[in-house]
């Protein structure tokens, strides 16, 4: 290295220029790990290749797993019960703890000066959301509620009461919003979607069994009345015993009050718009029918 030298100056130069220590640039001292040498069978007379001697084991004719010689096997004796009925079709909301969120904010992987939604969490590698695995969004979990200390405008799909209280107590806002699987695909990988040449679709409304949740103020649903939400914020502050900070006095009030339209998938982009990644331009439709369709 050009700036390498001897003594303190050399060391200081190294420190200045070497990258941050990570798992990709350290290695153990020689002799730290001992890999046991692979041993062959004891002696030349054993030539069974680990298969044993005669029988089904060596000849590879063992019956299927679970077979018990002919009597009804255990896995068929036990009667069925619908614990797992339709389990592969149920909606899943992988958890994101407040602890991890605080960690990501501290590491700078999530920008608190902008509204946080699933797209920014995916870019910051908070979670791995895969719509193909019946993931419908993120569930904000209470672990780390006692050390959480960030002012954020976050949008998740489910959060418990304590998580909501934690976020609001620290001067932030939280909203619960619904993304149908297509919108979730777009949110999780926007650039991949833009290369498909399809205009951004409208976000669908939640199904009937979720409408109540997303229209209630207690759960800060995105379809709820803002006045009711304000009342609910005060009620929650009373319940958990903290003073609700007045957001209108914040310098970031504008940022904290940014919300997506119920039909909008990405911040700053509307339904029916087309993004040209090569020229970095956005194209909007002009046909009145199309406009009407995308506005409905």
């Amino acid at each position, binding site marked *: 290295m050009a700036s390498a030298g001897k003594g303190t100056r050399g060391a200081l130069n190294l420190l200045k220029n070497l990258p941050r220590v990570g798992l990709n640039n350290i290695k153990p001292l020689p002799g730290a790990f001992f890999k046991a040498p692979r041993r062959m069978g004891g002696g030349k007379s054993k030539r069974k290749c680990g298969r044993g001697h005669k029988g089904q084991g060596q000849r590879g004719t063992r019956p299927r797993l679970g077979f018990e010689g002919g009597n009804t096997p255990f896995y068929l004796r036990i009667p069925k019960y619908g614990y797992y009925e339709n389990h592969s079709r149920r909606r899943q909301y992988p958890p994101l703890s407040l602890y991890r969120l605080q960690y990501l904010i501290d590491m700078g992987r999530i920008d608190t000066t902008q509204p946080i939604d699933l797209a920014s969490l995916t870019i910051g590698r908070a979670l791995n959301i895969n719509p193909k695995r019946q993931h419908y969004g993120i569930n904000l979990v209470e672990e780390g509620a006692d050390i959480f200390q960030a002012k954020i405008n976050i949008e998740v799909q489910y959060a418990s009461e304590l998580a909501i209280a934690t976020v609001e107590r620290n001067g932030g806002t939280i909203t619960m919003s619904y993304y149908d699987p297509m919108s979730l695909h777009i949110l999780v990988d926007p650039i991949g979607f833009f290369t498909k040449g399809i205009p951004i679709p409208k976000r669908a409304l939640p199904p009937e069994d979720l*409408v109540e949740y997303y229209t209630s103020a207690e759960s800060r649903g995105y379809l709820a009345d803002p006045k009711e939400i304000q009342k609910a914020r005060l009620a929650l502050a009373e319940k958990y015993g903290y003073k609700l900070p007045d957001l209108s006095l914040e310098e970031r009030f504008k940022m904290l009050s940014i919300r997506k339209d119920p039909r909008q998938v990405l911040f700053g982009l509307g339904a029916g718009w087309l993004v040209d990644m090569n020229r970095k331009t956005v194209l909007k439709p002009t046909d009145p029918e199309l406009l009407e369709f995308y506005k409905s």
Partner: protein
Amino acid sequence: MATSMAREFPRLAFLCNFRVVSPCLGSSTTSKYCRTQNDTCMQVARYRAPPFPLDRSRYIPDKSDPKTPEFQKTLKFDRKLWGRHGEASGFDPSICWPTKAELAEVQEEERDWCLTLQEMQQNIAIRRAEEEKARIAREKRIAANMAKMPKLIEQVHEERRLKKEQLEEAKKRKEHLIAKARERLGYNVHPNSPKFEAMLEEIENEERKQKKKAKKAKQEAMREAFKAALATAEAAKIQDGATINTDVPLKAHKTQDD
């Protein structure tokens, strides 16, 4: 907040990269850095987004060539080409939006399958009202039944008591009969034996005869009383203006219902 490193290792503060906090759309972290006088500076990670896949080859299929596969001549493929290459694909961006037919199809689908928020809320309201109604009806029924409970409990106790009494009575009666039989026949008779039954019949007959006798005696007594009453009436009739003693009970003639 995020300058934990600067706080913990003040001598290495110069290593922390700071970023100007400026409002911008899109919430991904950028990789631009500059020193700032702003005291709300924060450490932002060096996230290098993967480069956008610009297709250097830029293959645009020749539609007139018969060798090109069919799928490369479809509208869907053209849209994808436009998505990847933009204006360089040579297509008009308007192909990306749905055609009239496609739009009509999508609208029809929406109309058939998607309910509006108001409709969904109405359905929910109806369902909740029905549930509430059922719940109230059930609670009313339970309350009414619970109100009846003390009475029913008492009834049950009564029935049990009566039954017990009846059993005891029957037992006593039987014992009485056995004692009688023993008296009559002189030894311990078993209730199931024919002699016992014969004895029972005898007793019954005797009782019937006694009853008849008692009845006859009663009737005789009544007749006597009646005659006596008549006699006094006759005697009273002879004297005009005399009061008749009408205190004698005159009952109707009893029918034989033995």
